[in-house]
């Protein structure tokens, strides 16, 4: 297990660092954009827009986690699929399911750190300009977007591992559908009640990834 962490760290550290830097740059943009709005508008007016009209000052963030998840999936699994290199790992003295689940755990940890950074930056940005109640609301509003990041990661892996082209299209549709579901509401706390159901559906992608991995091992059958 430690050896797989070592391998994935070597493979991913540069691209993971770049993705984190990209997220940090976006969070900085979000902060500067909000600060600019508070400079040119009265704070009361912006509070009113947020609390009464329902304007989301951080709506630009919503697709960033999904893009992050998809990018991480590609960075982690595209090199494994190139020339069928995953077969090298499949011959390691470890079960296939164990091998794939450890890879996914590593990817999800990497993704989790970036998404946690995004949430922390969102909380800090909103907390800097808005009263405390808005921070909790912002985190709840952004939670399904973060879930979309996980769905994009697991869905990306599902698509990349799938050796059968028609099933790859089906997997893409399933993953895309889940990511879309996570973005259906752009209202404050809009997905609060749907969150457990969404999390369950996204969680189901985890065991689902084992199926294309087995098909890949079996020569695409």
């Amino acid at each position, binding site marked *: 297990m430690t050896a797989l962490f070592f391998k994935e760290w070597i493979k991913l550290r540069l691209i993971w660092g770049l993705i984190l830097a990209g997220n940090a740059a976006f969070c900085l943009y979000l902060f500067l954009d909000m600060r600019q709005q508070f400079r040119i508008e009265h704070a009361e007016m912006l509070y009113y827009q947020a609390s009464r009209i329902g304007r989301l000052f951080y709506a630009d963030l919503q697709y960033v986690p999904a893009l992050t998840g998809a990018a991480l999936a590609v960075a982690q699994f595209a090199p494994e699929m190139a020339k069928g290199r995953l077969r090298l790992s499949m011959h390691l003295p470890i079960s296939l399911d164990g091998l794939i689940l450890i890879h996914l755990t590593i990817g999800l940890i990497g993704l989790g750190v970036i998404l946690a950074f995004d949430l922390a930056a969102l909380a800090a940005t909103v907390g800097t300009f808005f009263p405390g109640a808005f921070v909790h609301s912002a985190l709840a509003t952004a939670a399904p977007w973060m879930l979309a990041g996980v769905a994009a990661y697991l869905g990306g892996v599902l698509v990349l591992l799938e050796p059968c082209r028609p099933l790859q299209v089906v997997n893409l549709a399933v993953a895309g559908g889940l990511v879309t579901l996570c973005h259906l509401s752009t209202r404050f706390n809009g997905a609060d009640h749907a969150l457990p159901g969404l999390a369950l559906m996204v969680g189901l992608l985890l065991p689902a990834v084992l199926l294309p991995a087995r098909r890949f091992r*079996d020569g695409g059958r």
Partner: protein
Amino acid sequence: MADQPAIEVDHLSHYYGRRVIYQDLSFTVPPGRIFGLLGKNGVGKTTLIKLLMGFLPPAGGRCRVLGEPSHALTPATKRRIGLVFEGHLAYDFMTIAQAERFTAAWYPTWRRDVFYDLVDRLGLPYSHRIRNMSEGQRSQVVLGLVMAQDPDLLILDDYTMGLDAGYRRLFLDYLVHYARTGAKTVLVTSHVVQDLERLVDDVVFLRRGGDVLQTSLPAFMGAFRHYRLPARSDGVAPSPGSVLHGVEREPDGTVSVFAFHDADAVSAELGRQGVDPAGLTAIPMTLEDAFIGYTGKY
């Protein structure tokens, strides 16, 4: 346990769609032998290697490696098998040192000295990334990684791919020494048949449809003969059958005849077919000649 075959292929069948690759293919590889798997393109060598490596489930029959079904190898058995994939597949984002550190973690009997003995011949710093190596250099790193595992069984799928004569010889010499001194079992395929003459104890010839001949290399080279008939104006050539295994018309008009029989039996068969056996001459042959004679040019 010691007498258990390293590889057992028993009534194996496999298909791609409706295309039959094998039907009823059977052979065994005893432990401690070096086995060459020979066959023309498209006869299913790579498919067989994939079946043995567990990357394809057999459509029928049994395929056992070190006593376990090849498609359900336990981690303990995988640890005893070293695989060299076609094209010397490696984690090319790693450096030499990283590849050694990563692979060593999986094998309790890891032989670091074996790995670096081979890799040091390349004269590269250990920080050299595998993706920046030539095919030949990468092949040495891959061979070093597999040998350092100290496996009981090595399976090498076309190790010659992309290697020039120098690297092929280096790879081969090292492999022969390693396998002989360690009493390892080796199953190897290669497109460069003459290399195998220096390496293998036994050969398995695969022909289309799964027709298979398993024999020791000396027995095969001793029994299989190459004869030549001079060019004839009538253009009559014999047909292959029970006595004449293969017949090839050469560009200069002569006819090559391959058979598992001596010159008298071949002459008699030629006579039976109405072909004058006068001038029939035995020709010495290499393994490559024998391979072509046995499997045919086309």
